[in-house]
């Protein structure tokens, strides 16, 4: 019974959310069916549309993976947005200086980005482990600091002297990622993201470390009594979570923007967290949720252009969906299933 239900609830919620979105289109004097059609075509209807969806999915899927890792170990990392920014800033800082072998440069950029993301979550992880500071507060505050710091960097240390806007110097063209297929903007970044999801899924399900992390997340008191280093495992999960979000930021610079500017992240970390909640902290399911949200984002731009229904309406969907799924799960928990 439990397996169908796990699929059924999110699927039903997604369908309901789409139906709601379509009926809201009436408010914008558009036909609901037209709006849905524009949404579908804009996200999956052409090479360009698919490229756009995959492009948007990279950051969401990776931050969702980061959120999964944290959730499975019983910690809530709301700071994915900040860690994404830290990763992007690190990529923008080291990237322009790297020329020569593009593969080495790319690896160095992504490594720096992941490291920066992990470092950015570390204060919250250590404070939670040593001083019981709630990570929900500390990670969200680190988001604000990251946004301000990124704004400062593109106006100060990282500013491109040649440009008029507050933005960093561009990565060399040879280092930036090429489009994956002609006619679309998607790059190999999305493949990196999907590979990371696969690795994470295996890590959680099939390694000794994954089993320990799950035990800590499922039953913290038992894990401690059994003799697991619960504090250290949680810090590790935090760091891994931050590294995935940082990697997402690095790929955004490497594959999409080529540089850092302000504002940069625009909520990708929060959407990733929503995808992980919708995917019930399962890496693969969360990746599908992330792809769905990315398609929604790409499609809603097309919907606005073609039917005049504001794209902002589609931005409601992730929030409504997550609330619906959480409510369904709480209900299931109460009825003891």
């Amino acid at each position, binding site marked *: 019974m439990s397996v169908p239900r796990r699929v059924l609830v999110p699927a039903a919620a997604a369908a309901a959310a789409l139906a709601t979105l379509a009926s809201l289109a009436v408010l914008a004097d558009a036909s609901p069916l037209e709006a849905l059609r524009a949404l579908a075509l804009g996200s999956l209807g052409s090479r360009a549309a698919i490229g756009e969806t995959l492009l948007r999915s990279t950051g969401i899927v990776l931050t969702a993976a980061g959120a999964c890792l944290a959730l499975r170990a019983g910690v809530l990392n709301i700071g994915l947005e900040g860690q994404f920014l830290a990763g992007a800033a690190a990529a923008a800082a080291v990237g322009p200086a790297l020329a020569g072998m593009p593969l080495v440069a790319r690896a160095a950029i992504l490594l720096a980005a992941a490291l920066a993301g992990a470092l950015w979550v570390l204060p919250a992880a250590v404070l939670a482990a040593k001083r019981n500071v709630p990570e929900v507060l500390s990670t969200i505050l680190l988001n604000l600091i990251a946004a301000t710091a990124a704004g400062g960097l593109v106006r100060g240390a990282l500013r491109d002297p040649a440009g008029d806007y507050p933005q960093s110097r561009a990565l060399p063209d040879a280092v930036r990622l090429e489009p994956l297929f002609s006619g679309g903007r998607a790059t190999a970044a999305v493949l990196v993201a999907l590979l990371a999801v696969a690795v994470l899924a295996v890590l959680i399900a099939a390694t*000794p470390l994954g*089993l320990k992390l799950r035990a800590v997340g499922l039953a913290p008191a038992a894990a401690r*009594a*059994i003799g697991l280093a619960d504090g250290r495992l949680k810090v590790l999960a935090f760091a891994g979570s931050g590294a995935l979000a940082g990697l997402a930021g690095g790929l955004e610079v490497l594959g999409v923007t080529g540089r850092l500017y302000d504002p940069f992240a625009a909520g990708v970390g929060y959407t990733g967290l929503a995808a992980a909640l919708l995917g019930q902290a399962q890496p693969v399911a969360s990746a599908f949720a992330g792809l769905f949200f990315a398609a929604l984002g790409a499609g809603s731009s097309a919907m606005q252009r073609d039917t005049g229904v504001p794209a902002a309406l589609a931005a409601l969907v992730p929030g409504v969906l997550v609330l619906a799924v959480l409510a369904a799960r709480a209900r299931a928990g109460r009825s003891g299933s």
Partner: protein
Amino acid sequence: MGAASVADNLALLDRNAPLVESARARHARVARLAEAFGLELGGPDDRVDTLPVGTRQRIEIAGALAGEPDVLILDEPTAVLSPDETAALFAALRKQADAGAAIVLITHRLAEVFSGADRLTLLARGKTVKQCLISETTAAEIGGLLIAGSGAEETEKEEREEEKIFLEGEEGREPFEGRRGDARRPGATRPSKNAARSAAGVAANNLEVRNFRAAGTPPKQELLSFSLSPGELLVLLAIDGNGADAIASAVAGLTPFTGEVRVGRAALPSSGDPLAFRAAGGAFVPADRREEGLVLDLDLAENLALPDPPGRFFLDRAAMQTHALERIVAFAVRAPSPSTRAGALSGGNQQKLVLARELARSPRLVVAVHPTRGLDLAASAAVRARLAEACAAGASVLVVTSDPDEAFDYRGGVRVVTRGALSGEVAGGTPPAALGRLMAGLGA
């Protein structure tokens, strides 16, 4: 409120306090209440979270009494009070009851019942065992009933129920002069019979506890010292709430303590470190197997593989499966397969699973808290047999139980814990009434 001063906390707790009050009046209240109830409340400007837990509890009690309530319910108010303060508290309660208040006191401690109450209701495992006036009964009778209650057949549903005594003060009844005052505490810590041997060589004992006090017990608590040699089994027999559980969890590294605990040669850090306890060869069977013993949402094989699952990069599922099957058979865990969720097992089988895991590593020391609570007779006997086997293999075993019959079934030493103090060894033939008085802190 931890971040506020004593004066402010008492002003909030006192329901007779005016809406607006000067700092001076709030200060005066602290002195007045401390005087009136004989309780040490700390300085008026002290922040409450800087004070010891006992003082905090006294502030709460003083605040509750200050409002002169018509009905007052106190749940184990004396857990952190010294004997003098307990006596003062009972004097104050008596005064309020005489002034017309109805007071309900919930306590585990028989001595308190006979130090000023009018009526009592004895509860055991959720059922009322006796209701009577204090003048119609004796401590020995209640002690005997208490024991009968805790020795009664337990069922899984009732496993979380604890015996409690309800003690009621009633309007208009005459005070029991001369009955208050604390009971004599039995069993001041004696030097353990192994003390001489352990002085000669520390490594001779699997467990060495010296000048020990578990965190959260009153500061005036006597310091404990005892030791267990290889093959020795010691049962700590206590009514819940007397600190036997606290001793066990502190030894197992789950809570902090003061003093010295050695498992084998290793001294455990006093901040509490379950990993150090395990590394020294300790095994722990917690009282709450569902919360602390097992990860209910993992399957049997996974539970048995913790805390060190086999495999270098990937989990060695085959090894886990083999190990699980072997443990399941050896410990007669009734389960469909190793991939059954631990949460799906019955209580007895969950407990066998915990033992199967804990005894797998041939521990030097096994600490087992209420290991048979909630189990049927057969399962209880199986658990005892397993612990005896560990003993025979050279381990030391420390058992905590609240059931006197059970205590002697282990065929090891039995010592009674009352208010955190350890009695000498109790002989096997001790009559239930005497045992009850000992456990209730009334002296032998």
